């Protein structure tokens, strides 16, 4: 944790973590500000402002430690901290540049031009155990895609002759997705699972091939992989 924190600070050019806070007007109740003697250069300066949860911090460029932040910028800082706190309970560091651009550092990565309230492509779980609610949401999302794949896999709508995938592959058996990619001799090329899915749609089902990024292809792959999760590789058997 400490390593990541230091890395984030270095990325912003902050040379010390001994930051001191100062109250920021307009922020959520209980906010505290700490003062920091940041850097020695005279051509730049910055102040760090912490949110009340002690996990979100904004570095305000162009304001020296001890200096009062102008009201409009102070409001921007408060809004950013509030939105980050609403987003998650994990540690996030942000920077507001003199040109008002916001950069966010989280999970050891940098996200430029962040708009407060916007989504953050960060893996929250990497900070520790996801919450129960998060787990439920993720499972529901996964189940939704797998269920759609299950439906398609058992339906005749991908073909034209009534045949469905599950007629030869009950419970997604004999699909062995764990063996792809591989050179599929009959196709005379290296095949991904989706190439074989398309082959089956085209031939036994006499349907039309799906685009690789077709939602139905994603759903079929999701179903097959989910059903075969945990099936051990058996070399020489496939």
């Amino acid at each position, binding site marked *: 944790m400490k390593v990541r924190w230091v890395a984030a600070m270095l990325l912003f050019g902050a040379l010390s973590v001994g930051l001191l806070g100062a109250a920021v007007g307009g922020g959520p109740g209980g906010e505290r500000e700490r003062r920091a003697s940041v850097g020695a250069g005279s051509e730049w300066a910055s102040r760090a402002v912490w949110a009340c949860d002690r996990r979100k911090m904004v570095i305000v460029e162009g304001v020296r430690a001890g200096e009062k932040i102008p009201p409009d910028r102070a409001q921007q800082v408060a809004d950013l901290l509030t939105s980050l706190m609403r987003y998650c309970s994990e540690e996030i560091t942000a920077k507001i540049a003199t040109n008002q651009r916001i950069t966010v550092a989280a999970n050891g990565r940098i996200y430029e031009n962040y708009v407060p309230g916007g989504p953050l492509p960060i893996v929250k779980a990497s900070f520790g155990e996801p919450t129960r609610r998060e787990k439920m949401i993720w499972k529901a999302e996964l189940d939704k895609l797998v269920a759609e794949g299950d439906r398609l896999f058992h339906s005749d709508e991908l073909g034209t002759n009534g045949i469905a995938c599950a007629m030869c592959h*009950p*419970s997604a058996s004999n699909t062995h997705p764990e063996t792809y990619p591989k050179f599929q001799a009959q196709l005379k090329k290296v095949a991904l699972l989706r190439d074989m899915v398309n082959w089956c749609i085209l031939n036994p089902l006499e349907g039309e091939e799906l685009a690789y990024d077709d939602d139905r292809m994603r759903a079929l792959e999701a179903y097959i992989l989910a059903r075969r999760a945990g099936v051990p590789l058996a070399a020489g058997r496939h």
Partner: protein
Amino acid sequence: MYRNDMTRKEIERALAERTPESQRLIESLQNCDRRHFLRVSLKYAGMAAAAGIIQPHGFQLVNVAHAATSASEDPDIAFRFAYVSDTHLYARGMSHRFARAALKAVEDVNALEPQPDFVLFGGDLAQLGRPEELALGHQIIKELRAPVRMMVGEHDWYFDLGEKWMSMFGADHYSFDHKGVHFVVLNSVVEKDFWTAKGYTPEERMAIVSGLDDNRQSSFEVGEVQRRWLEKDLSNVVGKTPIVVFSHSPLYKLYKPWNFWTDDAEQVQAILNRFETVSVIHGHTHQVLTNRIGNIYFHGLLSTAWPWPYAPEGLPQYTVQMSRSDPFNQFDGCGDGYVDVRESGRVDKHYSFWSRNPRSVTAQQLASGKFPGGGYDGPSY
């Protein structure tokens, strides 16, 4: 009579002689296997056809995959019956791939010489139980030269609960005697009512049952009504009489999630136990499948439509698995076959694959407990 070691010259000489012996040779030519067929060559096929002795189609490769030994050549074989099973026809005309496959099986069986005593149809004639599908199936089956014994499968049944099927083919369970063997045909795909409470339409009910891995359905069973009938039917049969039972589902418990299963299997087996020689021939599983429980020997049937993978668990140790089918070949893992009933009443089961070597599981192998696979280490795929 044709022998595998005959040279071209010998065949040529025999054909030229036009004696009764050469006539038999010509007739037996169609039983030569693929490798020897090449040696015989089309020239002689043409000669035989020109002589009007046999139909030219007898020389097509589709026929020569059958075993070279005919029933009449082995004095221990009392009679032979053939089978076609699990055609799963859609009402989409004769050009649909499943209709073409069913016709292929009919051609195979019609090319058997001598003809089998009868042909068992192993169930699942239709895919969705529609009257049009059953009618198409009826039309195809009518092409068989030998008499047909029909058995019902779940795909024939759950659209109208057997109404159309029975109006076409008669009772769903019956028995008959043939050359000293007592044959019993069961409807083993009876399911407890899962549809009324849920308000499923006939189409929905059929769609659910037609999904092998659809767990909204119940399990297959023979049911009390037929068990009582079976007891009564067998009450006049002495224990030494060989019994052959046809059931669509395997009459034992293999894998419940796919209904490779009969819920009251133990009770049915208990009724059959007092007979010394019992064979059960079942459809539904679309694969080489062998089992033995005491005196009861079980054999599966090939489908003409598609092969099923083996179930992930529960495979009997008597089964020597067929290897995984080539998905790029529609006919691989599919086919038809026949059953030789020996004088003892025990049966040899022959699987006539369409694109691989034929396989046989003999009564002798099962009786000895020695089988070529040497045990079971889980499904191959």
